[in-house]
């Protein structure tokens, strides 16, 4: 599954940079607890969360994550968008809630 596949199949909103569509996503992590993400998310995975504030960018960059998807129609704060752009991290958003989005991505990865 590539970032391009996700864009094509889920048409999420894009808030930050236009990401490289060829980036391969091998794992997805769902959590709203930042220390949990730092402890348990896989390197380079895609992160699903409803957190929208600037600290998610530092967490994502620490885990070399290419992209974060915000759920429940949440929009990132302005400073989050700027920071994500400067760190080269894509920020997506969707109206889906975490379960639905995770299910769709699970099927794309393993279905």
């Amino acid at each position, binding site marked *: 599954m590539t970032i391009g596949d996700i864009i094509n199949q889920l048409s999420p909103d894009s808030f930050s940079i236009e990401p490289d569509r060829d980036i391969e996503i091998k794992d997805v992590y769902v959590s709203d607890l930042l220390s949990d993400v730092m402890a348990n998310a896989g390197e380079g995975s895609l992160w699903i969360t409803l957190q929208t504030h600037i*600290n998610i960018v*530092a967490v994502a960059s620490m885990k070399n994550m290419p992209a974060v998807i915000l759920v429940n129609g949440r929009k990132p704060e302005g400073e989050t968008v700027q920071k994500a752009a400067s760190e080269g991290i894509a920020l997506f958003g969707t109206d889906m809630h975490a379960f639905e989005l995770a299910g769709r991505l699970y099927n794309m990865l393993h279905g």
Partner: protein
Amino acid sequence: MDHTRKIDGRFNLVGGDFTNAGEASTQLKKILQLRGVKDSYIRRASIATFEAEMNVIIYTPAGILRYDVDDESIKITVEDMGPGIEDIDLAMQEGYSTAPEWVREMGWGAGMGLPNMKKNSDVFRIDSAPGEGTTVKMIIYLNKGEQS
């Protein structure tokens, strides 16, 4: 870059400054990358540093983070002027947190920061007493074989 050179630096951390949280760990990460330190060490150092930064930002008015890097190790010391910790064993337990509601709403306060610091360092030491602030010292040894 000259790998044998020792590099050190310091950062002032300001309580409540969530916007600049992660600056110290980001800078340390860049320095380590320039030195060609292996990714796995960089990752551990960044996570440990970021968790330490966050605790100063959340629980204290101010603190200082220092790092010393040479060929052997990455040493990180974070000293704050906060309220101190009454029961360190309790604070070290995964899941224990006194973070206020608004901090929890941001996704902090899982009670995993101190355990994460310990897990990611080879030497972890915390000194704290009520009214006297908290000092966390962490060492990550380099070049001691493969580790991921």
